[in-house]
């Protein structure tokens, strides 16, 4: 008996015993995932309270965003995976058009056009692309036999490169790489050949120098240089990294205690509410806190991967797997950049950093995952 068969049958058989559908099944939510997300959000609010110097207003505002995002997640969970699959091509076309619109009529901030204003309401089409990209690639690949042939792989890559290129020219290199990654995860999960993967990696390595010279903007090059040697620009770009490393390191194993982090409370730590909030946590709760946070993220990723692998439909599997792996990449990139492992690219720490838009995008992703999960259970009944 195949292991996968065993896993598939076990929950199904349980449910067939309890002939009635549980509340979670009726509401199409995954209780363990929801609990983990709620705990993480709670931790986030606690750290934010400290990072904002005890500003209850900030915490309440973030709490409001969280409530909205969780409601949106539960609503998205009601959608059936087949519906998503049907909408995927149209969503993709719409998304590409929005990205084109940003490049032509977008609103700029700090030398980059990332926003689109519609009737006094501003939003970032690249946020939509974060979800639409894996949907489109999963849709395309799931309509063909897997592992994908070279042709399908190539067409998938074109699907990935169009929105990525449009975001690169905004310019927003960090986001475009993360969005491309979500598409590439779909390809990977679909089973593209290792030969192809390695030749792509080799090609990338060869492209690295021309990319550095001709594609990267000065500020991007500066970020990478600063990451490699923050001491070179102590008061300028290196300041952020030096201060965040100092915050993390001075936390030690035990941490300085909640609300007692000197780096953040004395304003040495930049962006302590948003991208650098992990430094506040690391300073105040020490390595213990960091390990617990990583455990939480690990559990969420495990649960997500489990849900994805339970999906019967190929589309749901590919989409769910990509969403949860991309989620992890966000965690890794954020924690890596704040600790000086990676260049600073402006990626928030999922569910902990302050901010509304990215939160909604994230929880829509988890809503999709829950929908996939519910569909699977439905099938078993």
């Amino acid at each position, binding site marked *: 008996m195949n292991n996968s068969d065993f896993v598939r049958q076990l929950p199904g058989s349980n449910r067939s015993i309890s002939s009635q559908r549980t509340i979670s099944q009726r509401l199409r939510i995954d209780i363990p995932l929801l609990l983990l997300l709620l705990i993480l959000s709670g931790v986030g609010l606690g750290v934010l309270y400290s990072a904002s110097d005890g500003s209850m207003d900030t915490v309440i505002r973030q709490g409001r965003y969280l409530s909205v995002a969780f409601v949106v997640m539960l609503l998205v969970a009601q959608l059936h995976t087949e519906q998503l699959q049907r909408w995927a091509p149209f969503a993709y076309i719409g998304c590409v058009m929005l990205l084109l619109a940003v490049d032509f009529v977008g609103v700029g901030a700090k030398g980059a056009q990332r926003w689109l204003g519609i009737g006094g309401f501003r939003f970032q089409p690249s946020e939509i692309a974060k979800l639409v990209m894996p949907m489109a690639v999963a849709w395309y690949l799931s309509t063909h036999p897997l592992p994908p042939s070279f042709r399908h792989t190539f067409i998938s890559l074109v699907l990935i490169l169009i929105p990525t290129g449009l975001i690169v020219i905004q310019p927003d290199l960090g986001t475009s790489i993360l969005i491309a990654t979500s598409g590439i995860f779909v390809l990977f999960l679909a089973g593209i050949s290792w030969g192809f993967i390695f030749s792509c990696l080799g090609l990338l390595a060869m492209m690295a120098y021309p990319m550095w010279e001709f594609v990267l903007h000065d500020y991007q090059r500066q970020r990478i240089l600063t990451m490699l040697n923050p001491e070179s620009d102590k008061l300028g770009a290196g300041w952020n990294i030096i201060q965040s490393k100092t915050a993390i*390191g001075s936390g030690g194993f035990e941490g300085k205690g909640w609300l007692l982090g000197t780096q953040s409370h004395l304003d040495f730590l930049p962006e302590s509410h948003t991208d650098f909030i992990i430094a506040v946590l690391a300073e105040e709760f*020490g390595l213990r806190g*960091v390990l617990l946070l990583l455990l939480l993220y690990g559990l969420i990723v495990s649960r997500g991967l489990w849900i994805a692998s339970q999906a019967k439909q190929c589309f749901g599997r590919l989409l769910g797997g990509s969403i949860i792996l991309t989620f*992890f990449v966000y965690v890794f990139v954020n924690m*890596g950049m704040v600790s000086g492992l990676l260049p600073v690219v402006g990626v928030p720490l999922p569910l902990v950093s302050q901010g509304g838009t990215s939160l909604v995008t994230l929880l829509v992703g988890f809503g999709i995952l829950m929908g996939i999960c519910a569909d699977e259970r439905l099938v078993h009944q």
Partner: protein
Amino acid sequence: MTRRQQLKNTHYERRVYRHRVAISIIFVVTMISILIARYGQLQIADYNIYKTHSDRNRIQLLPIAPKRGLIFDRNGVLLAENIPSYTLTVVKERLESLDETLAIIGELIPLAEEDIEQFRKRLSRRRPYEAVPLKFRVSEEEIAKIAVNRYRIPGVEIDAQLVRHYPHGELFAHVLGYVGRISERELDEIDPVNYSGTHHIGKIGLEKYYEELLHGTVGYQNVESNAHGRILRVLERHDPQPGGDIHLSVDAYVQQVAFEALKGQRGAIVAMDPRTGGVIAMVSTPSYDANLFVNGISSADYNALQNDPDLPLYNRALQGQYPPASTIKPIWGLAGLQYGMVTTATRIADPGWFTLPNDSRRYRDWKRGGHGYSVNLEQAIVQSCDVYFYELAYRLGIDRLHDFGARFGLGVPTGIDNTNERSGILPSRAWKEEVRNSHWYPGETISVGIGQGFMLATPLQLAVATSVIASRGELRAPRLLASVDGEKVIAPLLGRMDDVPDAYWDAITQGMEQVVASPQGTARGLKAGLTYRMAAKTGTAQVVGIAAGEKYDSSTLHKRNWDHALFVAFAPAEDPKIAVSVIIENGEHGGSVAGPAARKVFEAFLVGEPKTVPTPMDITPEVWVDE
């Protein structure tokens, strides 16, 4: 479901998927391990480094300037104090734009070009995070204007500090000197740590001489500050050790009397206690208000002082070098006795002139027709007979004159605890060889006999020499400082003339007493109403040479070329408590012009109870701020 999907091998696809998920899990675990390793490295391995970084970030060591020691006179009159003053400072590091900030400040309060220029100079010397003073003596009204607009000018602060103030203004300027802002040159010389909180340093006079004593030792505090440099709390404080409070031997009342006595004239008075070397009064007129210099004198004020023909900045008591003229005669008389060239009974004929053997040049007596055909030492001193001392100098010779004069502290700085003292000239063969590159001529000895020629002495040196006579041979370095924080300071004894018999001292003192007491005495005008015995000697120093056969006539000379009036004295003659030297430039007559000034000083010191001087309250209100 489409036909195409039915062609898919669902089982195979699932297996591929699970395989990829397994690889993904490995990927996730690897990445989490990398993160744990990284955070472990920062938080465990490098914990100490970052802990230090973090502490260094938030904890700043700030210097606390010590309080400068106060200066009192011998009776406790406050001569130098510290009063609060507000300074506008700028921290460059926290400015967005220096020019913009200066422009905004310039709109709010008057800001002179000079201030800005000085500020830029200072700025280049200080570190960017240090507060650099922009404007001193900021008024309360100006503080209010800055405070209201503070949000527009981050990095601009009002700094309250204690600033030196001299309540008696010009009365003590030549005694105390003054403090001023530390200059770039001084910055290289001082201990940067001890002066890290200090803006002022003694520039001249007593303030400079006792800088180390008055300054004290810097204190510091560990403060926690945020990234913008704002101090949030004090973690630890080490109080500075304040500078020593010092009492001077100077008597403010006597000083004031001496100052009044010279008012309107150019001159100097030095009074000292021959028993201790303590300086009782030291006046040089005209004087200046030392307070002008404390926070940087304006160039207009400075030019006015510098270009004043009466030279108010010139400390005549220490720096003025005058021919001692006839005031030197008692010392030469004593030399004559000591070397056996004359006795008290020796009589010398004074026809009104003196000639050297084999030389027809006549050295004239100040008195036409001379002092008679038998002048003894006492008469020579009383009447200030020039010819007697020409003859005496001739008999002694320059070598003995030099050696004996040196025992009275002439020709070298007295070693007073003050700055810029000059040494005067006690000529000798060696001196002439070195300075003039020429032999000594006998005629030059004759001039030295009446304290003219090459001979020069400062008023302070004359006071010291007079003290030596008064104390019968004790040469002391004069001292302004009497005690530090209650501990007495003794002036060093530089020499004692035990070899001179009392009889000789008696003879000289007797002669000097008769200068006042005798009807022929050159200072007989001072006798009236004297309640104590005064020993004195007058002097009149030529400013321009009068050719042989010509007569000195003040009416034909410009006032600047009139003779200087000199007077040295001590009292009471039988138990000297005070010795005085007075010089009044172009005052003409020692006895009648300089003498009364000396008598006023004696009266102030010897007669009645010690008096104090009220502290003037004419301080500008913007400086006088309650703490």
